[in-house]
């Protein structure tokens, strides 16, 4: 995803790792990342304050005639039940941000920890965990997510904890494999040998020696996964396995308003654009950060 020529000139791999140089480098963010960051700030603002200025409640029916065209009363028209589409899109923002970020954070912590331990300990722990994760990765992501949701049964469908759990579950093996590769490289370094010689415990080495050096890869992994999480949430909602009606979830809204795709295409396009813009913001921001860290933000399933 990076053009190898443009950004490597100024990145010194030694100083690219760690926190302080990162902040010092923020001023040198590429323009794409700045635009991405601005988009994210707008989404954050809408998520935090939207409920106070959205013209209607997200589930309030009959605010106008069904499928009213966009106008002064309804900026983006109304849906089948006369709900204001603009208000629903605005109200949907906080949930998608909350779900994406929590699930990705959990997966990054779990995957990061397991990956570090696996790479450091090696042996049967590594072997067993990685074979299990390989199998989980070999099941296409969406299929695995659907399987777990199917297994959880209809009572739990639409439950936010289940959604967070499912996304964290499908992400963890992928992040762990990535981090393990980094850890395997780190354990050969002198500072790890020194820590071992000092007789430090595995936990201490994993957390105090390996983790700080894996921050960059964890950050990029978090960004890449967080960029795909809204798509996954929207896809599940669209298929009818995510949020339940009348939740103003964008994927669900797209599937609900598809009946009016001919007469009121705005009701379908509005949540679609909201979702796409969020992902564009997340991806360009991550891409920029990754370039600062001298890494490429690679997509993997």
């Amino acid at each position, binding site marked *: 995803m990076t053009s*190898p*020529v443009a950004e490597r000139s100024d990145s010194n791999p030694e100083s690219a790792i760690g926190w302080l140089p990162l902040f010092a480098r923020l001023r040198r963010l590429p323009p794409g990342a700045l635009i991405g960051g601005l988009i994210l700030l707008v989404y954050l603002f809408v998520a935090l304050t939207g409920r106070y200025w959205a013209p209607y409640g997200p589930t309030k029916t009959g605010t106008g005639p069904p499928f009213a065209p966009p106008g002064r009363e309804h900026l983006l028209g109304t849906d089948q039940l006369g709900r204001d589409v603009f208000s629903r899109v605005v109200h949907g923002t906080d949930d998608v941000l909350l779900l994406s970020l929590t699930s990705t954070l959990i997966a990054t912590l779990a995957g990061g920890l397991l990956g570090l331990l696996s790479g450091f300990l090696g042996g049967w722990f590594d072997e067993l965990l990685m074979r299990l994760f390989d*199998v989980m990765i070999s*099941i296409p992501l969406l299929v695995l997510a*659907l399987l777990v949701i199917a297994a959880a049964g209809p009572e739990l469908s639409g439950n936010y904890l289940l959604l967070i759990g499912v996304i964290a579950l499908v992400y963890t093996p992928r992040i762990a494999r990535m981090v393990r590769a980094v850890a395997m490289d780190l354990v050969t370094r002198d500072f790890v040998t020194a820590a071992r010689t000092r007789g430090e415990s595995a936990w201490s080495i994993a957390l105090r020696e390996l983790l700080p050096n894996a921050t960059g890869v964890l950050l990029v992994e978090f960004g890449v996964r967080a960029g795909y999480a809204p798509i996954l949430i929207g896809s599940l909602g669209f298929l009818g396995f995510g949020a339940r009606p009348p939740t103003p979830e964008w*994927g669900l809204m797209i599937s609900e308003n598809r009946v009016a795709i001919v007469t009121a295409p705005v009701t379908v396009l509005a949540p679609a654009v909201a979702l796409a813009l969020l992902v564009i913001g997340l991806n360009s921001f991550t891409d920029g950060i990754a370039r600062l860290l001298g890494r490429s933000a690679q997509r993997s*399933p």
Partner: protein
Amino acid sequence: MLTRLLARRLLLGALTLLAISLVIFLTAEVLPGDIAARVLGRESTAEARAAFRERLNLDQPVHQRYWLWIQGVVRGDFGQALTNDREVADIIAPRLRSTLVIGGVAFALYIPVTIVLASLAAIHRDRALDGLISVLTLIGLSVPEFVSGTVLLIVFAVIFPIFPVMSLVDQAETPLEALRTLALPAITLTTIMAVYAIRMLRDNLIDVLDSEYVRMATLKGLPRLQVIFRHALPNAIVPALNVTALNLAYLIGGVVLVERVFSYPGLGSLLVDSILLRDVPVIEAVALLVSAIYVFANLFADAMAIVLNPRLRAG
């Protein structure tokens, strides 16, 4: 040497698939508790549930049930569907064909589209066309397939009614008509695969174009296109094969969504329907089949990479 390596990969793939079947079986059957209550509903009588359990061999311990199931699977017998009494294999066969057709068409489009656009971007690197392709592919990466599919549907089936709104490929009478019903879903699938591959192949191509032997070819005065297609592309494409394997995962995930958008009767929509109907044997069979396609597609990409790149044979 080569055949031994390939045979080992094949064995590994088969073992992975066996492990996947165990994960799928355990997820679908053991996690949720009482399947009988789940399928028949909470109000069902105790006798009905008992009869149901016996029919599904649910009264036997888990490992025996798995053994019975996997024995059947190896013979191509996936048992009977719960919601209608048809054989699961009979339900799946036409759906599998539909999905392979649409996936095949998408894949056939994917290769030339990727090569042409990536070469264009690499030739015009850091200029307007490269920038445009970069922005378009970034947007393509960020737009979920059910969104891009829906937008295509609005534009090319509603505003300009060139293609049908529902892709009922079974009802097409001539091959041309079948192609017309396939076009929109196939284009959607091609897009989600191509956007990432275009970016990767462009970067690889630029690396290769900077290498000395390509400069040599250029300095020798060879025509630009010949340099790109004869000298640069073959070397840039091998790393892109891994991306293609990765892309197959997107294709398979995408199929589930795209089939839904276009009401296309394939494996993906069968999976969604069977989950809604809680038809466990069908869910298991489709999930296993889809994973098998994925594992063997990956294996194929691996094998291609090994055949094309002799350095990998040492591994």
